[in-house]
């Protein structure tokens, strides 16, 4: 319950932070909506209509009220359609892109990380450690550029950009996965190595349990706790999208929307998207605590014991 309370305060704090950041920004959203020919009176009227002339806290309360009472996230200043409509079209594209990437990343990183830890200091281990270091040193946009160059421009296997068919998603998913794979692989390796040093693993092996069983039942299960937490923490990213990858491959997802909106200062869109992401982050934080409790009996006992 205490965590839930902190979570709620966090969401409010995020919205307040976003509000004040946007409030302080130079420029004026009305300039984005209108061209220079529009008269000063008309502008003043629009400022009033959107409520930009009100003090910050009045704007904030009005915004919150609308969301809670009418589920109305406001109108995009730039597209002049409800923000929710913009998000509704874009969320599936980002979920598709980031979801596949997360899935493939896990399917690759977990076994590879486990193998690297078990065969520590072998050629494979050194290779994977250095290769992942190489991957983390590459900016995602350059990796994307290379993939486009090789597979879209050179071999013509995949289209350069677009988002209609499944073939469009192969390269962006590959670029995204390569970027995040390295971190997860290294995390898995480090966690497994730590668990391998634990006394209960030595005990399990000493009492003659089969090696594979110890690896999967004792080692992997305990090593996966931190990895699971990191997966849960990255879930909000499914919605927030991948800003850079979406830009390179021209996928109009949430990352792209957020990027464009912040550049042209489309306040209502930025506010709504960030509110959504903040709520998701808080929920995923709570969920990851629950998952840790399920996976780790020690914590389960501590929570059940009621001293927290």
């Amino acid at each position: 319950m205490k965590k839930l309370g902190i979570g709620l305060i966090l969401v409010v704090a995020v919205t307040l932070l976003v509000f004040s950041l946007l409030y302080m920004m130079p420029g004026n959203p009305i300039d984005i909506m209108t061209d220079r020919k529009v008269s000063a009176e008309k502008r003043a009227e629009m400022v009033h209509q959107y409520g930009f002339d009100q003090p910050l806290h009045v704007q904030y309360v009005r915004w919150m009220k609308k969301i809670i009472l009418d589920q109305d996230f406001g109108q995009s200043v730039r597209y002049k359609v409800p923000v929710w409509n913009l998000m509704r079209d874009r969320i599936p594209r980002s979920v598709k892109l980031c979801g596949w990437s997360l899935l493939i990343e896990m399917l690759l990183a977990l076994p590879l990380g486990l193998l690297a830890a078990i065969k520590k200091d072998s050629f494979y281990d050194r290779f994977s450690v250095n290769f992942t270091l190489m991957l983390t040193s590459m900016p995602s946009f350059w990796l994307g550029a290379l993939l486009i160059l090789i597979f879209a421009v050179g071999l013509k296997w995949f289209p350069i950009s677009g988002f209609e068919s499944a073939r469009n998603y192969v390269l962006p998913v590959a670029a995204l996965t390569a970027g995040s794979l390295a971190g997860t692989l290294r995390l898995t390796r480090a966690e497994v190595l730590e668990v391998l040093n634990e006394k209960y693993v030595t005990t399990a092996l000493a009492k003659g349990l089969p090696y594979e069983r110890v690896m999967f039942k004792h080692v992997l299960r305990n090593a996966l706790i931190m990895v699971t937490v990191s997966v849960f923490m990255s879930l909000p990213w499914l919605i927030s999208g991948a800003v850079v990858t979406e830009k390179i491959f021209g996928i109009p997802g949430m990352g792209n929307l957020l990027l464009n909106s912040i550049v042209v200062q489309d306040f209502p869109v930025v506010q709504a998207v960030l509110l959504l992401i903040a709520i998701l982050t808080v929920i995923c934080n709570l969920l990851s605590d629950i998952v840790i409790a399920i996976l780790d009996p020690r914590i389960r006992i501590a929570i059940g014991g009621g001293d927290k």
Partner: protein
Amino acid sequence: MSSKSKETLHACLHNVNFMIGFFMLLSVVLVAIFADKLAPSGYTDFVDNAFLSPSQSHWFGTDELGRDVLSRVIYGTRITLKVAILGASLELIIGVVVGLSCGYFGGAIDHVFTFLTDLTWCIPGTILALAVVTLIGKSLTNSVIAIAMVCWASYARPIRAKTMSLKTMAFVETGKAFGESSAALMFRYILPNVIPSLIVMVSTTLPGTILSTTTLSFLGMGSQAPSPDWGLNLSKGMDYIGSAPWLSIFPGIALVYTVLGFSLLGEGIRDILDPHLKSQ
């Protein structure tokens, strides 16, 4: 030379990662220092026709305005090193000021720290950095500041943890018993012992800081034209990736080389100063 520093030097010389990273960065620094001598032309000089592919006269080709790509890549080292120096200084300041005070005082300050950390993590980093840059103005320096403001928690966290464990040690307790002020305890007793952690923190986070700054430049919110910034050049080059791939390939290689150098050096330093992690 004391035996302790001799030992460290020995460890450095025998750490493969450290040595490879060191020589990679040394080459980058040398290129940056002698950029005037090495570059065939200035980075804003229009030397030839636009979009010439790599050849004898222009090893890396020419860009969309007919500038020599090789010269621009060479001058770009200066920008990246400026980012590295600026980034490392900001990381140090944040690490010392925030990490040390949160770890030392604990209590309310520490609660605020935890809350602000959670708050920053609720907003996607790139977007928060973009918002900060829009607020303080687009420039290279401001983009480094924005990245520091987004990642501040990861700079402060290890220092905070180290300070917390040092605070309970006997020598600090003794100092307290002798009536040393908080400031003296923090800066004369604890800080010298935190320095290894500070070095490890800076050397492991710096590659990420450089990459993030380049990402901001790539998104058009960092260095502005005609700067030879690698991220900016890459983003221009993306428009011509089908017809003139050399515009984006060469700045990219230079960037990966430099960041890899920093990463290897960082891994090496961590292994040398933090033997616990190496044993894993």
